[in-house]
């Protein structure tokens, strides 16, 4: 069997059993990168030297028994908005084109402690603003399932790298669907945990109240395992929560008997591609056949999530991105007449169009005279949306729906009409507003052969319900595929 065909946890077992060395695994990934990276452009930075050096260090620690975890020695790719000490971290933006952090983000530190080998930093929509990875200053990433199509975004590089075997797993960040939607488009598993579960320290902020780091992986087992490693209380992140129930792998149980699954009718209305709809409903039938109690219900407020989200995210982003001013780090324009001219030229040259669009919108909705009408209104609607989910989770353990209205669009199709692009986030966005966990896993392909993503949403701090449902579905689907073969 080819090393690249192992999942992350399978590989770790082989490494532990000395059947595969860390260096072999690392070289396998680097070899794959040599073959396919030119076409897919999954990475902004590939740290060959660092990875090979690390591989030897980790191997020694595994051999000495110092590291003994379920991911020890496994090569990983990190989204380029997480700080990594000594490795370029750009957010796929010209304004951070030369930024080398002097500290490592907490989530990545957790991986390193578990023996991860960082291969490189993955491409993304600039500052995570976008749904296609086309707003990157370093060119778009292509979908390995069909390179004429986008991989989704903003964690498109991470999802594509997993799909293309250019890593064994990856970290992404999810502000409005940025892990789940590209996972869906690329046919891999992606999960956004409950807000506050993974430390945001070292994650370069887009929308602070919405951002959350999570895994992209080959299967649900890997996903739960990675999440268990990166989830930690961090006193450096004031919004981090001390959780007891982070034993996510204990939920890898092939059993959904009695699990109450709600299907929101509002997720299956106008705009949803019929092939996507059929595949997702079929997945619901599978879970039903495995003993879940499945029923339809009305969630409500779905169409209000997008305007509320874009108001809040743009407002926070406009403030979070003020620090990029050409003084402390990153790009500074070459010629300027005075301080304010330096600010304006640096930022106008350093940011791309989508980032500027959101900064402008965010600055406007916070400006004098508009704060109440736009920003506070959006925060009130957010409260209503949270309430709608609370009501739903009083009745159901899991909410099931599509991750996106369509499969991956072709490159260049989305950016022309921002609102249309934003509408593509309709099924993922409200989960961020309400802080909920959500997982996306493949549930079939459309007639063009593009993957379709199934989204399972859980109540706050109850990842285990969706992991259990996802695992059970995945097992059933593997069985079905075997039968077909």
């Amino acid at each position, binding site marked *: 069997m080819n090393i690249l065909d192992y999942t992350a946890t399978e590989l770790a077992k082989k490494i532990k059993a000395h059947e595969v060395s860390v260096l072999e695994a690392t070289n396998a990934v680097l070899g794959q990168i040599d073959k396919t990276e030119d076409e897919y452009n999954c990475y902004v930075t590939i740290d060959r030297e660092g990875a090979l050096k690390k591989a030897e260090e980790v191997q020694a620690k595994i051999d000495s028994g110092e590291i003994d975890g379920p991911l020890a020695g496994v090569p990983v790719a990190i989204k380029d908005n997480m700080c990594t000490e000594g490795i370029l971290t750009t957010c796929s933006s010209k304004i951070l084109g030369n930024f080398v*952090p*002097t500290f490592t*983000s907490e989530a990545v530190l957790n991986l390193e402690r578990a023996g991860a080998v960082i291969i490189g930093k993955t491409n993304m929509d600039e500052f995570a603003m976008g749904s296609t990875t086309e707003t990157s200053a370093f060119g778009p990433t292509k979908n390995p399932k069909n390179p004429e199509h986008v991989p989704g975004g903003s964690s498109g590089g991470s999802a594509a790298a997993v799909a293309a075997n250019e890593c064994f797993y990856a970290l992404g960040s999810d502000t409005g669907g940025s892990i789940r939607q590209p996972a869906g488009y690329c046919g891999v598993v992606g999960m956004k945990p409950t807000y506050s579960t993974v430390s945001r320290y*070292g994650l370069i902020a887009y929308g602070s109240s919405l951002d959350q780091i999570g895994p992209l992986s080959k299967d649900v087992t890997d996903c739960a395992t990675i999440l268990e490693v990166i989830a930690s209380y961090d006193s450096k992140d*004031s919004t981090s929560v001390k959780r007891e129930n982070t034993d996510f792998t204990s939920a890898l149980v092939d059993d959904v008997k009695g699990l109450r699954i709600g299907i929101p009718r509002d997720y299956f209305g106008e705009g949803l591609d019929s092939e996507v709809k059929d595949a997702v409903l079929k997945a619901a039938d599978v879970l039903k056949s495995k003993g879940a109690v499945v029923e339809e219900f009305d969630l409500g407020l779905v169409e209000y999530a997008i305007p509320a989200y874009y108001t809040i995210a743009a407002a926070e982003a406009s403030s979070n991105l003020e620090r990029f001013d050409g*003084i402390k780090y990153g790009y500074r324009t070459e010629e300027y007449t005075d301080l304010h001219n330096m600010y304006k030229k640096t930022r106008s040259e350093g940011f791309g169009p989508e980032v500027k669009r959101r900064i402008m919108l965010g600055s406007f909705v916070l400006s*004098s005279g508009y704060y109440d009408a736009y920003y506070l209104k959006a925060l009130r609607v957010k409260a209503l949306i949270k309430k709608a989910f609370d009501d739903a989770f009083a009745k159901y353990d899991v909410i099931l729906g599509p991750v996106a209205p369509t499969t991956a669009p072709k490159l260049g199709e989305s950016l022309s009409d921002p609102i249309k692009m934003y509408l593509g986030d309709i099924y993922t966005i409200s989960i961020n507003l309400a802080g909920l966990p959500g997982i996306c896993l493949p549930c079939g392909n459309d007639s063009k052969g593009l993957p379709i993503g199934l989204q399972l949403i859980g109540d706050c701090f109850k990842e285990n319900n969706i992991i259990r449902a996802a695992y059970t579905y995945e097992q059933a689907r593997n069985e079905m595929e075997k039968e077909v073969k």
Partner: protein
Amino acid sequence: MGKEYETVIGLEVHVELATKTKIFCGCSTAFGAEPNAHTCPVCTGMPGSLPVLNKQVVEYAMAVGLATNCDITKYSKFDRKNYFYPDNPQNYQISQLYLPICRNGYVEIKGDDGMKKVGIHEIHMEEDAGKLIHSEWDDCSMVDYNRSGVPLIEIVSEPDMRSAEEVIAYLEKLRMTIQYLGASDCKLNEGSMRADVNLSVREKGAKEFGTRTEMKNLNSFKAISRAIENERQRQIDLIEDGEKVMQETRRWDDTKEYSYPMRSKEDAQDYRYFPEPDLVPIVIDDEWIERIKAAQPEFREAKMERYTKEMGIPEYDADIITSAKSLADIFEETVALGANAKKVSNYLMGETMRLLKEHNMDAEDIRFSPVNLAKLLKLIDDNAINSSVAKEVFEKIFTDDIDPEKYVEENGLKMDNDEDGLRKIIEEVVANNPQSVEDYHNGKEKAIGFLVGQTMKATQGKANPGIINKILKELL
């Protein structure tokens, strides 16, 4: 002319809190470090860094609020104030707009027409900015973020003051209160207390307020007085000339004694405040408030009363001793060690004040320990040293906090009480100064002083002056 105007003044006072670390990170707040030596990713706005609130900041803010009769806000939050300036590394300042920690307080001051209350609209917590240094040689400035993130409270008064004198009285009152709490040393000249003056004028008797201006860069009480007088006159002149006062922020130049508007068109003064998503709310319960209340020190008024009534110190003395918490502390500790209250008071009001002035120091800078002052007073009481030696020893205590017993011993300064030995010396002095002896006999009482002085000189100042006087009178 002929119209009479009233000045309406409100103050925004920034006070640097005396915490060991910054408000949102574990960097030291100590002065005097090399540029940027007290910085980290948080207080330099590095991408990915996050703030975590220093609990001591909340407790100091609560303590100041309680001491100024404020309501403590039970559910308080931080907001971001967005504006671009190089001393502000994130280009937003973390502050409190919507739910400040303290509201609706007041302090009592001696006003122009007797005691009056000055209302405190709110007290909020925020972070200080870094320091800009302007290069003399190159066309550039440089930023040092050592002060970035140092905790501040901003105390916003109501427009209740009517003169520079009231403003100074209010500031003195705040300073005293905060110093007593130990929440800050409140030094205007070092910037640990800064006051911005909001001022408007209106015709006497008018109900509406005039348009106000905000004056910044006031580094001393004198500068504040001058700026108030100058701005009052500037506004009156504008009104008299039929012109309008612009609502604006002005900067005071104390050497040129005038002010000028600060903002350019690039400063829209639209701060786009919104709740800081990286910090969680502060919830304060009654129990916490009670704990802070219980830990409040005895304030000046109470001390004055106790000093005069219980310790028998004149009001004049008590007023001076309580004018600085550090003096009052030394006073009480020295008395507690058994020293006589009035004698301690004399040393604090006389020698200590003189030396402070001589060394250009504030009472807060006093470093000597009460133990050594108490020992010195004991030596005097025991007739072990005379008063001129005592003065010399105290200077050493003041500067180097020496142990007076040891010092007197080691330098052989013990008072000479040996009558026979002294008699011999005095006989010599008398023999050598016939003129003074004659003057004395001719009724010039002062001449004896000269002879005492000569004797002291001959004994290197150690002789007991009582004994010298006694022997001299016998001999003459």
